[in-house]
């Protein structure tokens, strides 16, 4: 058994079996991470470059840790200290790196489709670590892994994705994945942050009332308000957003039911989520971060260059 794709560009390209294979392999890696020695020699002959054209803490560290735990050799590229500042093109930069015998590229870029472009021009396996407002596949995989771990299944699960749906690559990858695995999805947020026709295009339901969405769902995946991608005002103020769509402890308690709260980070505390929720008993945010390493180990392990 192996993945149906050579790269991980988006959840869109994966089928059900691929997703299941990644999640079950991640389970085995999660066990590896509980051992006294948390490192395995699987990728000791593989070299991986982390190309981050956009800022990241969690994702970059998570990928780097996953690579090191698999014994791969790791190269790091950060935009601020690179020759891109001197005007080198993306393709030139990558070809120069590949001529140093690199097998895999983990890439984040602010332009949607940048990893897809690269995949057409270079022989190395590419893992998309977030491209613009398109996809962030490993985040969706670790979200699904965390949901399955907490609630035992994905099939039939009711998931609400809340907040800045328009600019969120996490939302798009999550919607593709959850629909493929048979979960029900509601997107909730202000109308200005929810794309038109999303219900028809992706098979999800749109809900503008936060409380109704929370009453319905088993899991609420709360997104960050991405001010850096909004080039026009889409709501009047952060304070008003918090009043209408911020997740508050009192609101959750008023539901009178079990609910799981997730967030891909970084959190804007007091905007989309209050601190007593982020740090409270409903939240599995730190489990998500822990699971991220195991899921990324699984993806890298399953995609590592092989002669076939």
């Amino acid at each position: 058994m192996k993945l149906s794709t050579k790269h991980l560009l988006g959840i869109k390209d994966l089928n059900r079996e691929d997703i299941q294979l990644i999640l079950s392999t991640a389970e085995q890696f999660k066990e590896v991470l509980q051992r006294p020695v948390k490192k395995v020699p699987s990728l000791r002959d593989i070299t991986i470059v982390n190309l981050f054209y956009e800022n990241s803490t969690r994702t970059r560290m998570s990928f780097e840790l996953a690579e090191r735990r698999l014994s791969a050799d790791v190269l790091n590229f950060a935009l601020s200290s690179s020759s891109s500042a001197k005007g080198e093109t993306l393709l030139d930069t990558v070809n120069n790196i590949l001529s140093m015998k690199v097998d895999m590229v983990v890439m984040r870029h602010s332009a949607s489709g940048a990893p897809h472009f690269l995949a057409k021009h270079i022989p190395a396996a590419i893992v998309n670590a977030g491209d613009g407002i398109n996809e962030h596949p490993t985040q969706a995989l670790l979200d699904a892994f965390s949901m399955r771990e907490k609630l035992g299944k994905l099939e039939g699960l009711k998931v609400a994705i809340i907040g800045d749906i328009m600019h969120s690559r996490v939302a798009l990858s999550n919607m593709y994945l959850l629909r493929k695995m048979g979960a029900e999805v509601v997107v909730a947020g202000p109308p200005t942050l929810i794309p038109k026709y999303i219900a028809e295009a992706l098979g999800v339901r749109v809900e503008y009332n936060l409380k109704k969405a929370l009453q319905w769902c088993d899991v609420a995946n709360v997104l960050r308000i991405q001010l850096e991608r909004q080039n026009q005002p889409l709501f009047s103020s952060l304070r008003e957003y918090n009043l209408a769509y911020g997740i508050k402890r009192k609101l959750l308690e008023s539901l009178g039911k079990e609910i799981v709260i997730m967030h891909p980070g970084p959190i804007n505390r007091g905007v989309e989520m209050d601190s007593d929720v982020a740090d409270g008993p409903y939240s599995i945010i730190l489990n998500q971060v822990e699971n991220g390493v195991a899921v990324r180990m699984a993806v890298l392990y399953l995609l590592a260059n092989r002669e076939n």
Partner: protein
Amino acid sequence: MKTILSEQQLALTVKRLAHQILENNLSLTNTSIIGLQPRGVWLSNRIVQELKKLVEPSAIEYGKLDITFYRDDVRKSLHIANATDIPFSLENKKVVLIDDVLYTGRTIRAALDALLAFGRPSKVTLCVLVDRRFNRELPIQPDYTGKTIDTIISQKVIVNWKERDGSEEVILLDS
């Protein structure tokens, strides 16, 4: 096709292996039994079943080890991992590794590597049901052997277990 061990012989062999392990590790103090995933676990389950009749069951420390991530042929083909379950430390333990067929020795090499992730055992011994002694690619030999056989590379040894395959025997296939 040739039968190497019949159902009755297999049952006796499993009993003998259990007794031999006990002979060298009296009451199994400070000893851990580790079955190798996926196939060795069927044999180790049986051996542990026998051992439970011979010593205080709670004295038996039994784990399962998957060596997928430690293989030396990652480049050639993709292997799917099975569960590892070793909820105890192997530091200073006497470890008895159990697998069904010893062939090239590469699985055991990987297992020796994998064991170190759980501590440094004071001693590791190897117990196998079938030893294909002329096909070794590494200097690895078993300490407890069910049956030693002479085979050529094109032949295949199949171990069948009742719960999984419907019948219980070890057979040699020519192909």
